[in-house]
């Protein structure tokens, strides 16, 4: 059992190092911008607006801009660890307060979209795998959906259901019903990708000799798919799910802008427009952290699905 604990710890360590790397990268990227970083932080990046020396002094003090770069970086890390993400000079608020306010709607949107995508892809793949015509139809549909820009898909859905059918409201009214549109918009392309990967893996698994053995025992086609093939297809599927979560986070920015919903994505877009760099960096870091977390969880799930990996990992850890 201790081997399993060791493995989890090791994986978490790798994730932390990756997150630290991401933080480092954003920190130094900001220094790559030509000009005084204080201006960038103040949201006056390239506009070169006149800024009072007092305000400049405060920013310099807060970010220790007069210290050596490495000192700045260590102090910056310290602030991040204590949960201080800086101040938005544009909105004149602590960044963390802004994030907390906007995190809820995005979380709800992303979760609902993920659930939708998973359900759609699971049902679709199990029903179409190993059958020629359904597979063909489904793969054509996947291609179209995966090739459709999220924002345009949202348009078309709006057009059909709100403008022409008047079934659902376009603009957010705050209730669950208004979540349906954006979530479906966000979920469909992801579902298409997941469906593609899952059906391909299921088809591969169904070609394996053990499936023939299972069928020769008298098992039906669907129960072979569910009991044998699905587990074998689960690893590429989970990998794709983890990967597409990143696309989902990016897509949230688009969907929230499109449907005029509050959320981190829209906050990001608006902050970019107003050159509110502290907020931009904070949103980027938070979404990256979530993305890393999701992929860590996915990685940790692998050995539960494939016991052969458990053995390999257990013996590998002692190397």
């Amino acid at each position, binding site marked *: 059992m201790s081997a399993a604990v060791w493995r989890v710890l090791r994986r978490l360590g790798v994730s932390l190092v990756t997150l630290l790397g991401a933080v480092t990268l954003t920190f130094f990227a900001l220094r790559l911008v030509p000009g005084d970083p204080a201006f960038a932080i103040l949201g006056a990046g390239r506009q070169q607006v006149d800024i009072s020396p007092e305000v400049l002094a405060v920013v310099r003090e807060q970010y220790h801009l007069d210290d050596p770069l490495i000192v700045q970086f260590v102090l910056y890390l310290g602030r991040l660890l204590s949960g201080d993400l800086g101040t938005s000079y544009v909105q004149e608020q602590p960044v963390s307060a802004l994030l907390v306010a906007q995190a809820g709607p995005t979380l709800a949107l992303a979760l609902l979209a993920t659930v939708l995508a998973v359900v759609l892809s699971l049902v679709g793949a199990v029903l179409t795998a190993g059958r*020629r015509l359904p597979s063909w139809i489904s793969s054509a549909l996947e291609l179209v959906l995966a090739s459709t820009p999220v924002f345009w898909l949202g348009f078309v859905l709006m057009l059909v259901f709100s403008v022409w059918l008047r079934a659902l409201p376009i603009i957010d009214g705050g209730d669950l019903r208004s979540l349906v549109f954006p979530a479906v918009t966000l979920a469909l392309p992801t579902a298409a990708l997941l469906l593609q990967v899952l059906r391909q893996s299921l088809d591969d698994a169904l070609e394996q*000799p053990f499936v023939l*053995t299972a069928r020769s*025992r*008298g098992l039906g086609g669907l129960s072979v798919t569910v009991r044998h093939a699905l587990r074998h297809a689960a690893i590429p599927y989970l990998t794709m799910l983890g990967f597409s979560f990143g696309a989902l986070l990016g897509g949230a920015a688009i969907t929230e802008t499109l449907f005029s919903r509050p959320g981190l994505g829209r906050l990001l877009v608006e902050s970019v427009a107003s050159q509110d760099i502290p907020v931009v960096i904070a949103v980027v870091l938070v979404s990256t952290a979530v993305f890393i977390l999701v992929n860590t969880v996915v990685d940790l799930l692998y050995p539960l699905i*494939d016991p052969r990996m458990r053995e390999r990992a257990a013996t590998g850890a002692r190397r």
Partner: protein
Amino acid sequence: MTATPDAPLIRVEGLRVEFGRGAAATTAIAGLDLSLGRGECVALVGESGSGKSVSARSLIGLAGRDAHVTATTLEIDGRDARGFGERQWRRIRGSRIGFVLQDALSSLDPLRTVGAEIGEAVRATGGPRGRAGRVRALELLRRAHVPQPERRIDERPSQLSGGQRQRALIASALAGEPAVLIADEPTTALDVSVQKQILALFAELKAQGHAILLISHDLAVVSELADRIHVLRRGAVVESGRADAVLSAPEHPYTRSLIDAIPRFDATAPRHTASVAVAVEPPAALAADPSAAALAADPSAAALAAYPSAAASTPASSATVAPSPPPATGGTPLVVEDVSKRFRLRDDSERTALESVSLRLTPGRSLGVVGESGSGKTTLARVIAGFEQPDSGRVSGLGDDPRDVQFVYQDPGASFDPRWDVGRLLGEAIELRHGRLAAGERRRRSIEWLHRVGLSEEHLGRRPSALSGGQRQRVGIARALAVVPRYVILDEPVSALDVAVQSQILDLIADLQEETGVGYLFISHDLGVVQRVCDTLLVLRHGVVRETGPTDRVLAAPADDYTRELIDAVPVMPGGAAPPVR
């Protein structure tokens, strides 16, 4: 059941399986008749593509979703199965007919325990679940003589040995107490000694009254068990009859060629001079085959037909074309002294691949290294070739020119750069010895090598992936020899090939040695194959040399118990003077 005790459990007449429809349809099997009763064993024998597996699968309704199965009679337990839907087939599968595939590593779900797999089979055939199901699974494992069933039941296929896995697979097929067992190449993935034990298990089941339909490419395996044999070739039944009759007095030339092509060891038989005659025979026999014309369209059939002429032209071409620099005959021998090699496993334990192995080989001679899987024979080859460093001991006599030792692989396809055609592959090897050549000269020499290995100029522009297995191996041999090495290591060079092709390649290998004077280190699990080519044998087990000596002496009078075991494990054809070897 509706069947009376003596009525056949399965009766098939005019079985025909086609894939696709209309003009694009290909026929996998046409006109198979077969009947199988209690305690009987019927064998379907043929090479890959003969239609034997498809025929067997269509008896449980699993020929595949594109398959179109028709028959004038298809009775299972006396019931007409021709109109069966999926639901009815499912009642047959597992309960009336059990099915065993080759290589249990992939035929059992690698993610589940043996117990889960057998338990599923028990439930699917109406057996108990839960604790009672486990008891039943244990009972089945015991019946298949799986050692330590209480421990094995909670392990996964990858944790079992090859023989144990195969037994577990058979146990799962027995879950529904089927009267009939279909076994599709059930021993092909196994070492000979294990193969013998599994065949004994089938014999035991047969004695208990199970009817067995045995599918194999190997006449020798079948001869131990079968009462009747059907020989299949490219979808047609070429010969059917009682096993002893088919084996001792085959009527069809193809059957005869199959029997002849089986490498056999016979201490009194002279070596490859005799086998050359055998090898030229099959293609000639094919020409007499009435179906040969119809098969001419098939590229591999055409390749077969091309061999006699190529074989005839070989001596001529080697006499007329400018010979490559004279091969270094004699000279310093290749000496392996006290070589040991251990691998560290992931769990930090060590596995000994080689333990103080010594051998000696001179150019112009051939040494056969025989062993089962895990014997260290491939490691030995890799150490000699310099791919691996030995932990202790040394390899001498090679100098430091890597060109002096060449390799011929079991799977030549994987050893070629996938982007390159045959001409470029050979050209690279030729230039390695001769330095940069003009394009025309390079081409001329490449063609010369193609001729030597029985191929022709037309193969020059082809990619290896567009060649048949036998042709690919010929290119592999040509490439190795084109570097003009002193030694060639042949690592299971024919084990991936059909028997008839095997025989031709072995002859080519033997002929080229006479021509070039190269020394061979021939690695194989197959005593018969080694006997065809090698003058000296070395038997390896768990990295230790068990016996070494002249081939004839070792096979006729083995000094070591393990060697004797190996020889005894080889299936023996009844009535035949010479025991064939798989």
